[in-house]
């Protein structure tokens, strides 16, 4: 046990003193979350709003004034035609165009008839679109209520152009978790082990009475800890900065994540047993882990859309299963039982990889 502790201590010291690696290990998740999060940041500002009205009237002017006064929006002007409205969206002059019907505000609204307003939004940036539209509706309703004392008379019809299904809004958080944990654990573990082969320290460790599995376990512990830290960072940033819901069981999410981390570590271990230099370990990690994790896991493209051979190949990409788990547990708020299948797949992969790794890693140099 004492031996184990000193191994772990050494490993931590080495990680902590390698400033660059440290920066990558801990900085990467933060940077990635922030870069991706910028696109869907809750804090929507400077949404350019134009409007179209065939015949302008005082109510329309008042409503638009109120919208312009809101800190979220910039009033960019009036479009001459529906055609112009769409052009404004396409060219990016406007993010949202409010189209007023002729009846809107023409006279006192007819009892029981809702005012006709259509909101066109450029949803290629889904976050700005959805948030902008929500705030816009709110502003309009409030104005209308104050003005007429009548609730819900404005019930605008919203059309989201260019990305109607609003895919990928929260998708990147599970994807990013799958990617970061895989990279940090697998790549860093494999490089750390191979580095000791390169510097010759592994030879001395092997010749010592220390058992091989202990050397490996000691390598994994610090990266497990760092990964747990990363997991916490990602979850905290996602929930508190990006406002991604955490609707399911946190305990279940953490448990499956821990399992996934262990799977990643065992993959790293396996890679390290096959590779001889840090450079090849790095390359192999990138090719076999990073690219499939990004492209074949559903992180960027839905797996369902993949060509058939790649679809089957995606079955062996660990992140594909993990991302489903996180989506279901975190965003959809489903109970643990809903991810039982995925969890079992990850568990099975872990057992297989670990067995392979330990079998390959013998306590000799060949």
């Amino acid at each position, binding site marked *: 046990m004492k031996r184990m502790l000193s*191994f772990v201590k050494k490993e931590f010291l080495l990680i902590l003193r*390698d400033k660059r690696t440290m920066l990558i290990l801990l900085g990467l998740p933060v940077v990635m979350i922030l870069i991706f999060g910028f696109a869907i940041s809750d804090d929507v500002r400077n949404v350019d709003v134009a409007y179209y009205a065939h015949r302008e009237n005082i109510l329309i002017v008042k409503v638009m004034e109120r919208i312009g006064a809101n800190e979220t929006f910039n009033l960019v002007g009036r479009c001459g035609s529906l055609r112009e409205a769409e052009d404004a969206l396409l060219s990016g002059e406007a993010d949202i165009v409010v189209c007023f019907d002729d009846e809107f505000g023409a006279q006192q609204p007819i009892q029981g008839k809702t005012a006709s307003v259509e909101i066109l939004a450029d949803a290629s940036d889904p976050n700005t679109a959805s948030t902008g539209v929500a705030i816009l509706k709110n502003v309009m309703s409030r104005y209308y209520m104050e003005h007429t004392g009548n609730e819900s008379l404005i019930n605008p019809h919203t059309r989201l152009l260019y990305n109607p299904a609003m895919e990928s809004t929260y998708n990147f958080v599970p994807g990013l978790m799958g990617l970061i944990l895989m990279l940090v654990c697998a790549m860093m573990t494999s490089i750390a082990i191979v580095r000791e082969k390169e510097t010759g320290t592994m*030879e*001395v460790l092997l010749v010592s*009475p220390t058992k091989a599995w202990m050397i490996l376990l000691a390598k994994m512990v610090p990266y497990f800890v760092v990964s747990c830290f990363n997991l916490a960072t990602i979850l905290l940033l996602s929930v508190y900065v990006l406002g991604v819901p955490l609707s399911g069981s946190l305990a279940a999410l953490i448990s499956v994540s821990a399992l996934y981390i262990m799977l990643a570590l065992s993959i790293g271990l396996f890679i390290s047993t096959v590779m001889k230099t840090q450079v090849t370990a790095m390359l192999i990690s990138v090719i076999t882990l990073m690219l499939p994790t990004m492209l074949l896991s559903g992180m960027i493209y839905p797996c369902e859309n993949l060509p058939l051979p790649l679809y089957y190949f995606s079955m062996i990409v660990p992140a594909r299963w993990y991302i489903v788990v996180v989506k279901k547990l975190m965003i959809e708020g489903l109970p643990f039982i809903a991810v039982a299948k995925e969890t079992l797949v990850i568990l099975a992969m872990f057992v297989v990889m670990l067995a392979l790794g330990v079998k390959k890693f013998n306590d*000799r140099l060949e």
Partner: protein
Amino acid sequence: MTGLGVEIKGVVKKYGTLKAVDDVSLRVSPGELFGIIGPDGAGKSTLFRMIATLLLPDSGKITIGDRDVVGDYRDVRSVLGYMPGKFSLYQDLTVRENLDFYASVFGTTVGENYHFISDIYRMLKPFEKRLARHLSGGMKQKLALCCSLIHRPQVLLLDEPTTGVDPVSRYEFWEILKRLSADGMTIIVSTPYMDEAYKCSRMAMMIGGKVIKEGTPDDIIAGYNGKLWKVSGREVYGMLLAVKAYCGVVSCDSFGDSLHVVVRDDIEGLRSYLREKGYDDVTVEATKPTVEDCFIELVRDGCSDR
């Protein structure tokens, strides 16, 4: 303390078609300071790794005491200290952290065995808190030695510990090895520097995977066949070319400020030849061969046999 003997019998190790170690047999007695001398690529490191249980011989047998390096490799590892070719330190750990770590790897503590390494560690003590990467070659080498000694091994394997190390550090290092050997530890050390052969009690010369000669340095020198002449003068390079062009010369090699020459017949012929060529300040005298002369002779003879 008494060390253990090491016996190597008919060991072969192949990489593909290349025989890295080719039928090597050696016997190292307990407490010996045994040198394995040969250039890069002679198979020294492969041999060391087989002794250190890290590689399996294709054929042959190696025993340490009565433990077989293949069958009883766990037992072997507990009595072995091994310092691989590269200094095998953690560059990002300090001097003291490296030592502490290796101590615990071998299930001991620095405190427990400090007296054993204190002689060497005294020199490192002032730099305990310095990262290993900031040590000079000589200091790294001493620290690596401390690390491989901290568990009081009975057999110490040092693979080229002095390569790339300056002459003063090398000298000090060999003094340390001599002391350890005098205390009874069995030490096998490899080196590409022929002059270090004299520090060993016995040695083997290796080239191309084979041991071409084994014995005490004196034995090896006594086995030198030719009659060696030392030719010295002002312009050594010119003289070297001149002597090489002389028809009666068997071999001529530069040794520092002079030439070591073996002639076929009478040395007077060479004397007068050199005078003719205008080298009139030349002194020619009989000299004792060095281990390096022996190595060169053995390899040359080996080449002409083939």
